């Protein structure tokens, strides 16, 4: 079993979402993670704040704030166990972030050292 990181970018919701829509979307996320957890493949994960700081180069230039457009913004990540990329991608394909035009999931295998 290998470990994969699923990185979520962009968003799946609109600012004018109604409470019922928020709830429906929330339930989708919970069902998705529940499903992974029930198969014993969920290792953990966290959301990230929208704010941040970047330090660049030898001069250690510090830049404030989010670094990019909304669709490139890293919103959170989870770690899953999977046999191979195909399985990890199959899990990622059901991620609710993909309900949004700008939503994307990046799948990366963790290289054990």
């Amino acid at each position, binding site marked *: 079993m290998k470990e994969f990181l699923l990185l979520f970018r962009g968003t799946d919701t609109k600012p004018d979402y109604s409470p*019922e829509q928020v709830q429906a979307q*929330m339930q989708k996320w919970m069902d998705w993670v529940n499903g992974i957890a029930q198969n*014993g493949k969920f290792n953990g994960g966290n*959301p990230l704040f929208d704010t941040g700081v970047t330090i660049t180069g030898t001069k250690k230039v510090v830049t404030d704030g989010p670094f990019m457009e909304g669709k490139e913004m890293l919103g959170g990540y989870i770690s899953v166990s999977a046999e191979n990329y195909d399985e990890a991608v199959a899990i990622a394909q059901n991620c609710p972030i993909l309900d949004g035009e700008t939503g994307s999931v990046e799948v990366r295998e963790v290289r054990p050292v």
Partner: protein
Amino acid sequence: MNRSSEKIYILTDHLFRHEAGKMVAVLTRIFGLPNIELAEDIVQDAFAQALKEWTFKTPENPAAWLMMTAKNKAIDILRRERHKKNYEEESSYNSQYEYSSIPIIENLFMHNEIKDSQLRMIFACCHPSLAYADQIAFTLKICSGFSIDEIAAALLSNHETIKKRIQRAKKYISDKNLKFDIPEGNELKKRLDVVLHSVYLLFNEGYNSGNKSELIRKDLCEEAIRLGLMLTENEYINQPKCFALVALMALLSSRFESRLNTDGEIILLEEQDRSKWNTELINLGMYYLNKSSEGNEISDYHVEAAIVAEHSIAKNFNETNWTRILQLYDILTKINSSPVVLLNRAIVIGKLSGAEKAINEIDLIPDVTKFKKTNYLFSAVLGELYSQVKKNSEAKKFFEQSLSLTNSEAEKKLLRKKMSAVS
């Protein structure tokens, strides 16, 4: 982050919607009615945060989490305001908001105070200066957490119309600087009547509307009952007529499942499968009908509920106590002698003394010629009565007229069926 693999997280139905109503009410009490949009923004913000966090860690008590988050955001805003003001004028700090003391705000987020704020909000949304159509849209938006599109779908309207209604209502309560309170004494009596009427209209939008979606219609009925129950829970407000209205709505709702068949056709009371009636709602209705009699006031809700209850306790259609129901209609006409009430009374007379008699009664209703031409119910009932006395051509004429006056598909199906029986 922890997540045991056994635990399944399911949110209770309408959790966010119901919490939205509570949160907006409490926040509006803190920031004042003119800042109701600030309250809505905070709620939206808290929901966005929930959406981000709960996937990874669902709170033990989601409702409490939402309230707590709303509270923290409110306190943040007040702290920022105080901070800014301190720079401007150190000596006299006066918040532009209703409340700015943290302990008071903590207190407003206590259970009883939340309920109190919700009631204040119902009274604000159902302010007598607003048209009923605006009241209903506004109540659904603010007290019930519906979005504009959801309201438009529920009320068979469109986005722009509903948006305008809500904006008009918001502007009114904010321009007039209305007090965010529960009226007292005589004022309460008057204002409560308006609130109850608005809640009942909301219920009827669900119960009688031509909306195709059963889910939406049921949703509106449940929402009206929820608002009605809220009124019964407060000892200053819970007058007998609040109980009577809840009783009426619960008893009517008990038949919700048996009113339409799988093809969306109306099943008449006579043919309804009474085993499908929701006994839980009947019991709830009977309980509140009983409570509504603790007083010397009789409202039309009392009598209407008593009439519906008569049907609820009849084992089958043939055992309906029409004599008792006619007595109730006689009482009702003294409180409310609207043409529709008189029409229903005539139907009951028909059950007791025959269709001929009922037709005569209908002809005695003031302005009946007008209603025959404009109200589908009148022509539908007359069509039915004429078909019972075998005057088929008359019956057909009325059914045809009725068909042209209703937009409801379910009603139309029923009318066509009746029409083919007399053709």
